[in-house]
């Protein structure tokens, strides 16, 4: 007597560990686990604090923002440490998400229809995995800029590292640091705005779940895979 062969372990293309669908009205889809969310908010708070303290030192018009940190001396002392925190928390996050953010052919199609994206005409857009090309751009843009910011930031960290880098190099570092900071703030604004404009997104980072309709509208391949996973039983 032979036992029927067990179904092959499904190869997940879009779903990540912890992603799951829960039937109901509406369907609930788990998108981020509690640790990923905690980490996201550590990263987010760090980035906001870094932007405020950095802008205070970037332009005299915003120097008054140093009072939020207890004065210029404290701002100068705290900023780099917050940078270290951001670097660590972001790259923990990075390790969890990079695979799902690898570019795919469908990203080119999506980008070619950027007008429909901005207009909110999802019906004209291709079905997507867990992330769209815009999210991937934000992900990789942040990753590259954070690397650049931590490297140049260490070079201009006067208190501990001034002796290790020559002044001409530190001049480059401070210029690159400020340009990278401007770019990451722009990406940050894009990220926050996209999350607010695309209704139903924020709860992915608060409750950790989105509705089935949201997943259907924005990340249908991901939803289909999770639904299929349910049919076949959970991955081991």
């Amino acid at each position: 007597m032979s036992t029927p062969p067990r179904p092959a372990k499904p190869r997940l293309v879009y779903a990540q560990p912890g992603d799951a669908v829960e039937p109901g009205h509406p369907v609930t889809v788990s998108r981020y686990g509690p640790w990923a969310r905690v980490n996201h908010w550590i990263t987010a708070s760090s980035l906001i604090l870094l932007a405020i303290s950095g802008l205070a030192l970037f332009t005299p018009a915003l120097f008054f923002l140093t009072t939020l940190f207890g004065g210029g001396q404290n701002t100068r002392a705290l900023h780099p440490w917050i940078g270290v925190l951001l670097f660590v928390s972001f790259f923990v996050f990075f390790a969890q998400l990079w695979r799902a953010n690898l570019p795919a052919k469908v990203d080119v199609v999506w980008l070619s229809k950027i007008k429909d994206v901005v207009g909110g005409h999802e019906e004209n857009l291709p079905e997507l995995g867990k992330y769209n090309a815009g999210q991937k751009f934000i992900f990789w843009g942040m990753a590259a800029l954070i690397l650049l910011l931590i490297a140049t930031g260490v070079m201009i960290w006067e208190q501990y590292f001034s002796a290790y880098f020559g002044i001409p190099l530190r001049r480059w570092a401070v210029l690159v640091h400020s340009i990278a900071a401007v770019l990451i703030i722009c990406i940050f604004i894009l990220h926050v705005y996209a999350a607010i404009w695309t209704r139903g997104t924020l709860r992915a980072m608060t409750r950790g779940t989105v509705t089935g309709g949201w997943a259907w509208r924005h990340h249908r391949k991901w939803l289909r895979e999770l639904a299929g996973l349910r049919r076949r039983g959970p991955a081991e």
Partner: protein
Amino acid sequence: MSGSTDSPRTAVSNPPVQPMASNLGAGDVIRRSATSELPPPTRQLTPVAKLIDVSKCIGCKACQSACIEWNDTHPAIGENVGVYENPHDLTENMFTLMRFTEWVNPATDSLEWLIRKDGCMHCADPGCLKACPAPGAIVQYSNGIVDFIHENCIGCGYCVKGCPFNIPRISKADHRSYKCTLCSDRVAVGQGPACAKACPTQAIVFGTKEDMKKHAEGRIADLKSRGYDQAGLYDPPGVGGTHVMYVLHHADKPQIYAGLPENPSISPLVQSWKGVTKYVGIAAMGFMAVGSLVHGVFGRANRVTREEEEAAERLVDSAGPPPPGPRP
């Protein structure tokens, strides 16, 4: 002398015994770091300058001692590593430093011992002040003195990047930047800098910038008459001229004097960081913020429809319940 209401003319006179009010105040500030709207100065002081005649320096370091004493700094006792410089570099406790160079003149094949008193040059166009992000941490007075106001300093080290002469030093103890003040507190009461006062050979002299240039002319003519045909004044135009000037016997080769820059100016990296990057950067961030706001207010939000929720429900329902646990 008319110095009671204006800049002192010399460093050699002795101070009066009665106390004097400071003659250098907020009304004399012509530039203030990280400050765009500065009230115009109430008067124009006669520009002053310190002239350092390298050819007359005997390397005695009396200037360093006088500087330490007047400014009440406490340089650490160093270690002799076989060079004449002591300490080994400028520090937050040593605002001026004799730098010694042994140079073989290729024209005469003779050894020349070049001694240059290093320290803040008090640029007319100060890179430190341009780079400084802290309002009022660096000021420039109408007499030409560039001064660090330590209580406003945040210790970021931007002045170090701005300076074309590698002068400011950040204290590891109080995280504030220090450099030569041109004895602004002495000048304020009609006295010249302590180093000039102490110099036994008058290699360091002090007075109005005009007088110092004239004095330099005499010195240069003398040096030329003694075979130094490249003798000249170091008052680099790339930083708008300086209020500390050198008479060099080889003015065509300033770099032989322990790396005195030939044509110093504020680095273009610092200029673009404090210039175009700042303006374009703020514009870009502002554009993003305003653009998002406008799109948010006037655009239609991207909402999930009822049909999409139902489609998802159908998809998940058709998937059916998960199979029961492990098979027997």
